[in-house]
């Protein structure tokens, strides 16, 4: 009988104790962050979307080779000797036109391994983490600032230059072959 009343009393009492706890929480400021409006401060060394400062890129392909998932594709073409490609911010002379610098963020694993080998520090992690897309193709980011026509032009320029060089070489070789003959003719 005694335990009966004790149980009943304790049940009632503990309900009120619990209610006191929950009532206090009613006035505790919420921990929710109103996400799209308010964003959490990211840690200092967070790894999110990559960015390539193409003005500094010398097209050395080291990042593409470091990438464990091969999400970076780089194509370069040599500049002509007559062209001035400018310098990187570090003072390095650029020699290659970068005609293709695609990063497929659908593949990227955000390991940051591409960032370390870069000699000019032109590829780095940014704090952008909202870049969802409806089409997977849209996740392939093109960092080259040249227009497609310019890229074709650079390739064509180099091809022409090479062709000219080859023609020159051939001409020189032909001259070399022809020269002894004339000498022979003379002699």
């Amino acid at each position: 009988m005694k335990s009966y009343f004790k149980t009943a009393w304790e049940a009632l009492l503990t309900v009120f104790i619990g209610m006191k706890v929950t009532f206090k929480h009613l006035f505790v400021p919420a921990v929710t962050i109103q996400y799209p409006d308010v964003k959490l401060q990211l840690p200092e060394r967070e790894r999110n979307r990559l960015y390539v400062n193409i003005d500094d890129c010398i097209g050395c392909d080291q990042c593409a080779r470091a990438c464990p998932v091969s999400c970076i594709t780089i194509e370069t073409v040599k500049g002509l000797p007559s062209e001035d490609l400018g310098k990187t911010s570090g003072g390095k002379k650029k020699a290659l036109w970068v005609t293709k610098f695609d990063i497929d963020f659908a593949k990227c694993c955000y390991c940051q391994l591409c960032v370390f080998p870069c000699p000019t520090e032109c590829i780095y992690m940014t704090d952008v983490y909202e870049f969802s897309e409806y089409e997977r193709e849209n996740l392939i980011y093109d960092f080259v600032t040249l227009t497609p026509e310019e890229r074709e032009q650079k390739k064509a320029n180099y091809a022409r230059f090479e062709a000219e060089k080859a023609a020159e070489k051939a001409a020189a070789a032909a001259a070399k072959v022809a020269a002894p003959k004339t000498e022979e003719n003379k002699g």
Partner: protein
Amino acid sequence: MIYDFFHNLTGSYFIADIIQAILPLFFFILPFALFAVWWERKVSAHMQDRLGPMRVGYHGALQTIADILKLFQKEDIVAKDIDKPLFNLAPVLVFIGSYGVFAAIPFTSAYIGANIDLGVFYIVAVSGLAVAGILMAGWASNNKYSLLGAMRSAAQMVSYEIPTILVIVSIVMITGTLNLNTLSEMQTGHFWNWMILGGPGFGIAKFLFIPFMILGFLIIYISTLAEVNRVPFDIPEAESELVAGYHTEYSGMKFAMFFLAEYANMFAVSAIVAALFFGGYQSPIGYLGNLLNAHWLIPIEQLFWFTAKGLFFVFVQMWLRWTLPRLRVDQLMETCWKYLIPIAFVDLIIVGLITVL
């Protein structure tokens, strides 16, 4: 009375009856459900240190309207092997059960749906209709979870009606009336005339009543909480065990009807507790209308006090929901049969003895 007003306005008892009957639905239950759903989400969120709905309207105030619009658009999915007539009838029956209760609830001294002398008895009887609706829903769904939920609900609601009735009987012994309007009128004046503080009259009996009234209030509050299937007595719709209990198979507007009935029930039982123990629509501190000699103001004030008391008890229901874990079936039955009913009986006998003395 509003009924006379409508009768004079339309000149027909029939039209006045219809207007009288639909008044609480459109002016009370629907706005209340809209508000209470939002309020419950806000209360539950803040009790868990969250914010709850924030994006639709000011602090999510229009969230429920958006939800209702979504429910309207939803497909009414009907499973293949259900018992169609029963399945379609069940939500209506459950809603009728909770809507019928509102007929005998006095909102103000000027408005009561049906001023019947058997008010409390009628409420107890009509709210029993919901059990049939729930059983119907569970059985017709042809789903093991629905059936289990319905069975639990029936067992729970039938057992918890007993302590409710016992406490009501003890109140009736003091007041000598079953009419909720008369009951509220008796508790007029200030808050010390409320039943929880021994009721009107000033004598030794009043002070003797107080502890037993508080006990009676606790019992009726716990048992009505169980009757409307709220946490911690929500085993009929225990999400973690039974998906959603008896309304697992319902979708679209039929589900919305169960939902509406649940919220209407929440307010109904709170209103009954308020009417029995806390003076119903009576103001605890006197009326501004009397002070300003503007008697038309009194019913509006009464509506305010009645709604405030009802909403407070609804708030306590929500508060309990985020405080207590769900009871097991055996614990539920033990609470009812081994604790609430014997204590209610003792309470009834003691109150009866004091009344006789």
